[in-house]
Structures are given as C-alpha cells and as structure tokens.
C-alpha cells in the first residue's frame, strides 16, 4: 500500500480521535450547563455553539488563520510563551476541528441531559449526594446513547472535515493533510485512482460507524423497554 496513503489515513484518524476526546471532556461540563442553567447568557452560548452548523467552514478557518497567525497579538503570544504555533500545524488542525465539530458533541449531550427526569436530580439532592457524584453515578450512566451519538458524530464529522483544515492547516503531508484534503489534492493532479482509494475508504468507514451507532442505540432502546 502507498505509504502516503497510509500516513494520511493514520493522521486523519489521529486528528478525529484526539478531537473527539477533547470534545467529550469539554462537552460534558458545557452541555450540563446549557441543559440546566437559567442564565440569560445561555441563548448567546447556544448560538455560538451552533454557528459551525450554518457557517461556511472557510469563514471559521479564515478567522482562525488570522487570529493565530504569529503576527497577530494572540498568535504571537502563544508562539513566544508556549512555542505553540496554531497555523499550518497539527495542533492548529485539532483546535479548528474541535471548534468546528462542537455542535455535534454538544447537541446530543445536551438533549441527553435534558431527557433525564428532573426528579432524579432532585432525589439525589435530597439524599445529599454532591453534584459531581450525581453527574458521574446517575446522570452520565443514564444517557449513554447521547454520549455515544456525540462521540461518533464528532468523530465522523472530523474525519470528513475539509474547509477549516485546509484554511488553518494547509496540505502538509503527515502534519495537516487529512483524507478529505488528499482527495482534493489527488483530483487536482488528475490521479483519480488514489482519489478513489481515499474516497471509498472514507465512504465505507463512515457508513460502518453510523450503522454501528444505529444498531447500538436500538439495543439501548430495547433494553429500556424491557
């Protein structure tokens, strides 16, 4: 097998895996807050979280590029203090992917939290069980389908991401070249055979992942009915 192809596929799944883990860690507190708060800022935060659903990826990519460029104060500060450059780098692709896939993690988690009967949280409170313990022993175990959906959608969406990655990361083999970009690159070079290889693998994997989710969720639903 073509070493470029293998490298690109491994990179793609690395980015998707890391992005999903970061999103899960960030997503649980954020969606918890969104699900239960009555704060007025909620509408604003919800809007920001959902923006990537409608915003052209190139818009987000463009702003990230400008924002994290070493000539910009923020980018310069990150560069000089942490030696972290978020443009045309692996880390930059991760940051861009996290922001861009945010709604795909937050929405399933938020509806998962929302679907848990309020009196389970109230019962935990009357028993003096702390919020953190309630989250881990009662809330999260009762919203497994939501967690699974959030992870899988984020993963699949990151695998298929194109615009943000191209803008922020460019097309550096082994660093920022993800499968979807490789397809574009190969088609431009009229190398249809390799493009097809990438395209078919993405198609098959995405199909398999989504099929798995639907099957697992059906089992969850049946378990709840039983």
């Amino acid at each position: 097998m073509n070493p470029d192809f293998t490298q690109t596929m491994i990179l793609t799944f690395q980015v998707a895996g890391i992005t999903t883990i970061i999103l899960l860690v960030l997503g649980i507190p954020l969606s918890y807050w969104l699900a239960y708060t009555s704060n007025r800022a909620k509408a604003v935060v919800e809007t920001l979280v959902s923006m990537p659903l409608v915003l052209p990826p190139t818009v987000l990519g463009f702003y990230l590029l400008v924002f994290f460029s070493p000539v910009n104060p923020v980018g310069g500060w990150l560069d000089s203090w942490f030696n972290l450059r978020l443009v045309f780098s692996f880390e930059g692709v991760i940051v861009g992917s996290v922001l861009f896939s945010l709604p795909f993690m937050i929405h399933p988690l938020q509806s998962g939290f929302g679907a848990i009967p309020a009196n389970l949280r109230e019962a935990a409170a009357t028993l003096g069980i702390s919020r953190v313990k309630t989250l881990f022993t009662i809330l999260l175990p009762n919203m497994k389908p939501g967690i699974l959906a959030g992870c899988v959608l984020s993963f699949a969406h990151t695998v298929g991401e194109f615009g943000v990655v191209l803008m922020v990361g460019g097309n550096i083999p082994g660093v920022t070249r993800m499968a979807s970009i490789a397809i574009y690159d190969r088609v431009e070079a009229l190398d249809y055979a390799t493009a097809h290889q990438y395209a078919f693998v993405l198609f098959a994997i995405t199909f398999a992942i989504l099929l798995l989710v639907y099957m697992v969720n059906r089992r969850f639903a049946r378990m709840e009915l039983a």
Partner: protein
Amino acid sequence: MIEVNVSKRLHTAEGPMDLVFNGIIEQGEFITLFGPSGAGKTTLLRMVAGLTTPDAGTIVVNGQTWFDSTSRINLSPRRRSIGMVFQDYALFPNLTVAENIGLALPREKRGVIAGELLEVAGLQELAGRKPDKLSGGQRQRVALARALALKPAILLLDEPLSALDLQMRLKLQDELLRLHQRYQPTTLLVSHDLSEVFRLSRRVFVLDRGEVTRSGSPTEVFSQSNISNKFRFNGEVVHIKASGIVYIVHVLVGQDVVQVIASKREMANLKVGKRVLIASKAFNPLIMPLDE
C-alpha cells in the same frame, strides 16, 4: 420540633394563588397534608425539602434554620436532613436496589445500614435487581428505604401510594406504620386519600386553594358533629339498593363490605363513591357523609 411558616404566590391555571402555611410539627409525629390536587400540598413539601423556594417566611428544624427570608438563609436540599419519597419514586434506573438504598451512605456504613433496611423492608431477595424489574409496590418500598437510610430529621412523602391498587395500598400502609414505629421519623405525608389519612396520621392539615382550612385529628376534622360513639368506622359507599321503604347501603370499610340500613331521609346525602362515617351509638348504627 419543626416550625414551618411560609408563603408563596403560585401561578395556577385558575390564576394566581397564595400558598400560606403556619404549623408546628413535634418530633416523631405523623402528619398528613390533605386536599384536592392543586391545593399546594406538593409545593409545601418541596419548600420543606428546599426544592422550591418560598417567597417569605421561615423553616426551623430542631433549632437549625433551614430557611429565613429576612436573613436570606436558604439551605440547599443537600444540606437539609431530609428523606423524600417522590410520587413516581425517582429510583436511579442504572443502580440496583441495594445501590439505590446505599448510595447516600458513607462507604464504611453502607453495608450494615443498607443491609438492615433491605431486611426491614423485605427486599433482601431483590437487592441485586434494577428498578425496572420491580413491581410498583416493590419500587415504593425501595424508595422508602432509600429515604430512611440517612435517618433524616424529617421524612417527606409525596402521595407515595397513589399509583398502587387498593390491596397493595393497604399492605403498604401497614408497612409504613411499622417502619414509622421502628424508626420514629417525623413524617409529613401528602395525600388525597381519606382512608390513608385516617389509618396513618394522628394529625391532618386540610389545604384548599393554598390555605389551611382545618386542622386537628382526622376524626375531628372530617366529621361534622362530635357525637359520643361506642365505635366508628370510615368507609366508602360502593353500592345502594332500595329494599321496601329502606335502603341497603354497602360500605367498603378497609377490605370488608358492610351493609347498613338507611332511611330515605338519610339517603339524601349519600351516593356511590361518597366517603361515610359509620358509628354505633348504643344500639342504633348511624351513617353520615364525611366532609371532603
């Protein structure tokens, strides 16, 4: 001793309603809050639990202030010593019966206390089951055992038996009495079932549209006149049959149906479903409707 003096404006389907309650509950007492749905019973219970915040007033439990609107004290439910049984039990579906009961307990005491409660509530066989594999009555027992686990200063029961059939209800009323005798928790029960009020509580507050209209012992509160009786039962009219110039009224008392003769005059206030008091004054039985 628990002193509750609270008020809150509620927005109901029939417009705003002011819920006002002032009462003192002694240690170990079993109190019921009785009234039609929408009277504010559950809200009152939730205010004691800290799940709903009163507009004004104080809640003082054994000398500790749980709520005081003037000094802005409002203990969170987590810091109030309460045990609550919700109308639909609110058992944690992912945990077993034993885990539900033991979750709030410190690890080192979990085994002993949960074990004792499982035994007292007759749940040993079911310790490893999840709530979805239990019957309604079994779920109710788990919820009660869970609420008692922390030995709360006050036990709050929100219509805990309303979802069960009559036979199970009677059985669990006995069980509730037994548990109350054993652990002596100060108990506040919300109910709209009159037989439950009579069987379980010594004192009842009748709530109507947010106000306490009557309070006292169940018999004082629900029978109009104080007659000196040899014996008396409360029941429900299940069937009325005309027989010549009199009527035969079938009354469900506990699980037995009793037949009582009533005159046409007495029949004026009676109909099937009416709650009645049957009393015998020397030799002549009396039958009269109860106020609700």
